[in-house]
């Protein structure tokens, strides 16, 4: 019988710890498929960050390094500068990348560091139980904005792709979403392209993936997907922010 769907080699065959309806699993799979299809698992070093995906070194079959909170781009820089022929990616959430790690991501991007960043934006801190993230939408209720995010009190959500695309360093930046099959396919292409940009030595690539957190949003998985589609995309428009014409 022909196998039409299988686990990518770059994904370890163990159950993941993520909540039902969380899209981390899909994002992991997209990364693993890219490593398989591009034949780069053997020379890839992944950097786990701090947040729900802190231990995705259990799930990825390539060599992995667990980085301090927010510092993944700096750790990735150290690896890439040590092993220029390797493929290096970071996998970071919104708190990790856009709050505590803002300096590291901005400067890695500004240097045009030849790494790939997978940025999971679910507008909330998952692991520590639902606090405000730098990407939390206005009026969104979290455990630290119990009356909704008020720009006068809590500031405004950060659009990372837009911000980083003002720099000269990044070769490729795209925002994608995982709320339906069509968009997942598009996300897969973006992740592949990001790795191909790195393989071609073109410089910094980042894919922001709009994701769900049904548990901390207080929704069921379907409601969560709808929220991405109906609320998040409005503030975080999908598309290519750098490197649209880049052929790899």
């Amino acid at each position, binding site marked *: 019988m022909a196998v039409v769907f299988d686990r990518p080699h770059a994904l370890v065959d163990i159950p993941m710890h993520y909540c039902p309806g969380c899209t981390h699993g899909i994002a992991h799979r997209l990364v693993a498929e890219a490593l398989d299809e591009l034949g780069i698992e053997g020379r890839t070093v992944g950097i786990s960050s701090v947040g729900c995906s802190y231990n995705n070194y259990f799930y990825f079959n390539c060599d992995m390094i667990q980085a301090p909170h927010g510092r993944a781009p700096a750790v990735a820089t150290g690896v890439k*500068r040590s092993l220029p022929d390797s493929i290096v990616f970071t996998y970071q959430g919104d708190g990790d990348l856009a709050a505590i790690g803002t300096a590291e991501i901005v400067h890695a991007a500004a240097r045009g560091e030849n790494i790939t960043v997978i940025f999971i934006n679910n507008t909330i801190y998952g692991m520590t139980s639902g606090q405000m993230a730098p990407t939390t939408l206005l009026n969104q209720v979290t455990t630290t904005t119990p009356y909704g995010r008020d720009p006068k009190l809590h500031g405004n959500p950060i659009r990372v792709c837009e911000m980083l695309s003002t720099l000269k360093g990044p070769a490729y930046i795209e925002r994608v979403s995982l709320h339906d099959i069509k968009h997942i396919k598009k996300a897969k292409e973006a992740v592949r392209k990001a790795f191909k940009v790195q393989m071609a030595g073109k410089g910094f690539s980042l894919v922001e993936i709009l994701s769900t957190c049904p548990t901390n949003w207080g929704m069921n998985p379907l409601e969560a997907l709808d929220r991405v589609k109906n609320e998040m995309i409005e503030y975080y428009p999908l598309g290519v922010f750098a490197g649209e014409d880049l052929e790899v």
Partner: protein
Amino acid sequence: MGERLLMKGNEVIAEAAIRAGCRHYFGYPITPQTEIAHYMAKKMPKVGGVFLQAESEVAAINMVYGAASAGKRVMTSSSSPGISLKQEGISYASGSQLPAVVVNIMRGGPGLGGIQPSQSDYFQATKGGGHGDYHMIVLAPSSVQELYELTVDAFNLADQYRMVAMILGDGVLGQMMEVVNFRDEEPIVETDKSWCACGHGMKREHNTITSIHLDPAVLEQWNINLQNKYKTICEKEQRYEIYKCDDAEIIIVAYGSVARIAKNVVQVAREEGIKVGLLRPITLWPFPVKAFEQVMDRAKAFLTVEMSSGQMLEDVMLAVNGRKPVYFTGRMGGMIPRVDDVMAKIKEIMAG
């Protein structure tokens, strides 16, 4: 014999690192150690190495974390306030058992403090400035020649024990020039690095570098393994110099540039007929308790001299353990102890 050169302490540290096989340096400017970065920026491209000026001390130590994870000999350097910023990364590297060399050319604190020489980061260096039960190997050179030799040793020790080794100097050592004799070849210790995260080439299971173990039983065992390693180091790696202690009644305990001043004191005191010797710790962690056993019987008293409020003093008291009186004199804030001040203290002790 190799080259004999007149060089600045900071430059010698950088040169020693390159000779020890370090090809990756990540740093951020801060006085009084910036010449290390200048030297690296000039030399690294010529030896096929990497110099990168990071956006912060925090980023620099995490770049070190990455390069060390990839199995490379790597170094960063800073001075006191910058070393405080690196503590997070040092704790993680210690937890992940990564070899790396960190240089601290100390200046006066706390806070932004000043830029003149100080030894007030002794606690931070030897007792664990970051979180968790960990240690670094801490080497305290007291001459430019020793900055060279101990920097090479630091890379070897870091690799051998898979841990962070620190060169703890101060503004005097970093800024001064002395003659240094370079060896023709460095005694580089090759170690197994099959644990590193450098791409498995589809030939082995994937490696993971991590310091997180959420199961407390697993984390406890991880800690026990670390402590066992530290115990071995305490047994095998204590280093010290004993100077004119054979007949000494008062033994000065001092390290780094202060030990140099203490040698002047020994000389002046002996000219005045007072038998003074010097015990100079070269490893601050592990603290050289063995040295104290060698001088304990004859000594009447110990006098710790530091450019701090008395930090090493506590380790001296633990080593002496009440057997003899322990005294202290020191200066703070970038002031350097004067021979006269120490002599006055010695006379005070002699007078009882």
